[in-house]
């Protein structure tokens, strides 16, 4: 059972990280459909970094950097060149899939050096709760901290207010003198770095290997998650753990040999995504009240 909880937290952490990153840029009004591509490239970068240096933290740094860089290019295109946000995000995902497969061919058989177990000292020795909750990779705890930081920043600080206003009505924010484009770009790059972090976590901690396409749609699920959570950080975390639970259930059922073909079990996370999307979208009022109004719409200061 403690292993199941651990699996849930692990899997959920990936989704939560990516989804929180996407939340930040969506709050500013930019929809980045390139999450999958960014995560794939970051996963490769992280894996390669650890293979070459043996330092797991460099892996995370590499992943975050790659995510930020790709998001930076994407951001430049949709914010300054005013390219279509949906198409550009898609292009990012397609390109990311291609280039990570291309550059990663050399790493397919590589193994990562052993990084040892993590634990929170004495807490980890508590019966049951110890292994279940307190023996995780630091990034798992980082995500929880991140949620708290985000909630506080978005609701209580001027920075958060400015970010939300840019997402609500960029023209009004511009009229008040805020540099809408710069603010959006910073949000996009920050979001991209978190997606990159998530990607690196997948390839260096969750399943320490490299295989092309290994993100397997988690970037897309993370996108759905921000909508499902109506753009609130705490709900994102909850939703991510829920999905983590579904993934965990799928593996568990396979391992205990339940008599369902494995492919149908594999479908579970994707079907679950569709179900939650349906559930949350049924009430357009919730969405309207919580969704940053300018998502997807281009902004040019001259108009």
């Amino acid at each position, binding site marked *: 059972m403690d292993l199941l909880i651990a699996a849930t937290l692990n899997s959920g952490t990936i989704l939560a990280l990516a989804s929180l990153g996407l939340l930040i840029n969506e709050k500013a009004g930019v929809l980045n*459909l390139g999450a999958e*591509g960014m995560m794939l490239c970051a996963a490769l970068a992280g894996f390669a970094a650890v293979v070459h240096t043996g330092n797991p933290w460099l892996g995370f740094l590499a992943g975050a950097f790659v995510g930020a860089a790709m998001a930076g290019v994407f951001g430049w*295109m949709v914010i*300054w*060149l*005013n*390219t*279509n946000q*949906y*198409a*550009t995000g*898609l*292009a*990012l995902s*397609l*390109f*990311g*899939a*291609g*280039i990570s*497969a*291309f550059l990663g*061919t050399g790493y397919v058989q590589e193994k990562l050096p052993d990084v040892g177990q993590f634990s929170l000292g004495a807490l980890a020795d508590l019966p049951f709760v110890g292994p279940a909750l307190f023996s995780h990779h630091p990034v798992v705890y980082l995500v929880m901290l991140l949620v708290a930081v985000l909630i506080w920043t978005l609701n209580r600080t001027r920075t958060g207010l400015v970010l939300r206003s840019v997402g609500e009505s960029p023209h009004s924010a511009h009229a008040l003198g805020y540099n809408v484009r710069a603010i959006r770009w910073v949000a996009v790059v920050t979001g991209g770095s978190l997606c990159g972090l998530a990607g690196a976590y997948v390839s260096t901690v969750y399943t320490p290997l490299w295989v*092309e396409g290994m993100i*397997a*749609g988690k970037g*897309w*699920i993370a*996108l*759905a998650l921000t*909508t499902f959570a109506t753009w609130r950080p705490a709900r994102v975390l909850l939703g991510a753990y829920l999905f983590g639970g579904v993934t965990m259930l799928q593996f568990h059922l396979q391992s205990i040999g339940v008599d369902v*073909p494995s*492919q*149908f079990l*594999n*479908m579970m996370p*994707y*079907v679950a*995504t*569709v179900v939650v*999307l*349906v559930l949350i*979208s*049924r009430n*357009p009022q919730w*969405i309207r009240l919580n969704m940053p109004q300018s998502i997807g719409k281009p902004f*040019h200061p*001259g*108009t």
Partner: protein
Amino acid sequence: MLKLEPRGAPSQAWTLGSPVLALLVTVLIGVLLLSSLGKDPLAGLRMFFWEPINGLDAISELLIKATPLLLIALGLAVCFRSNVWNIGAEGQYVMGAIAGGGVALLATEDSSQWIVVAILCAGAMGGMVWAALVAFLRDRFNANEILTSLMLVYVAVQLLSYLVFGPWKDPHGFNFPQTKTFEDATMIPRLFEGSRVNIGFALALLAVGAVWVFLYRTYAGFAQAVGGMAPAAARFAGFSARKTLWIALLISGGAAGLAGALEVAGPIGQLTPYVPAGYGFAAIIVAFVGRLHPVGMVFSAVLMSMFYIGGELAQSRLGLPKSITGVFQGLLLFTLLACDTLIAYRLVRRRTEV
């Protein structure tokens, strides 16, 4: 310093010129990439742009590859023009392959050639049903079609895997995950003797004409376009948003499904886990590079096929991973989107204000 200034009206010249510029930039980057990997860039250029059109056999292969890309892209163009973002064409393609393959498996040695019609119809229906799911979820529950159609791609791929590993596995196939090879009767008829090109290509060209007429000469096509460009105007005119949604998805689902059936009963000849070749995603690029215009997409489909074939050649002759195709395709879309900026904006040199 250089600044972007909005134009009064979109530039006609750049609407046509942007894809050309994008291609040039992509080629340039490709040359740099090949050089940095220690490969001869000229050889690379030859493989991507000369070999695929060198000779009748090469052109046949080019057209065979272009057929599914063109078909799917035609459907996607209708979708994107209606502002319906069907990203899951790959899933509809797979379901078309499954449906068409399922009918093909029913054939026996004595089946008449007319079973091909049944296969193709089944394929189109399979794709339509899968797309109808997306339409239903958006129509009834307001669920975003980008995410639902994409999730259904993963589901479709798993379904295919289940079928070829399970109930549809060839009992005489040495336990490989594949169906038996389809009977001869199911093979899509060739267009000419001596070439592998089949009627699928003719169908695709017919579809080009049909889509052109639909988009530019029918009232229904006009309604689709308005729905995509200005939803408030569509409502004002009385065009049903629901109808726009369903028509867009059914057409693109049908086209993708048809492409799937054509591939499976044509070049591939059986169902395998490798049926999903990414055509559904490449078709998105074909649609954009072709400016969402039926005739433009003929050219961009051929261009994409050249990338595919060039990638295969690069793998066998230069030792490069086949995924280089994906790199170039993604790069082309990126550069196209960037160059498209020049349609709506012009670059000017402005004195920096003190």
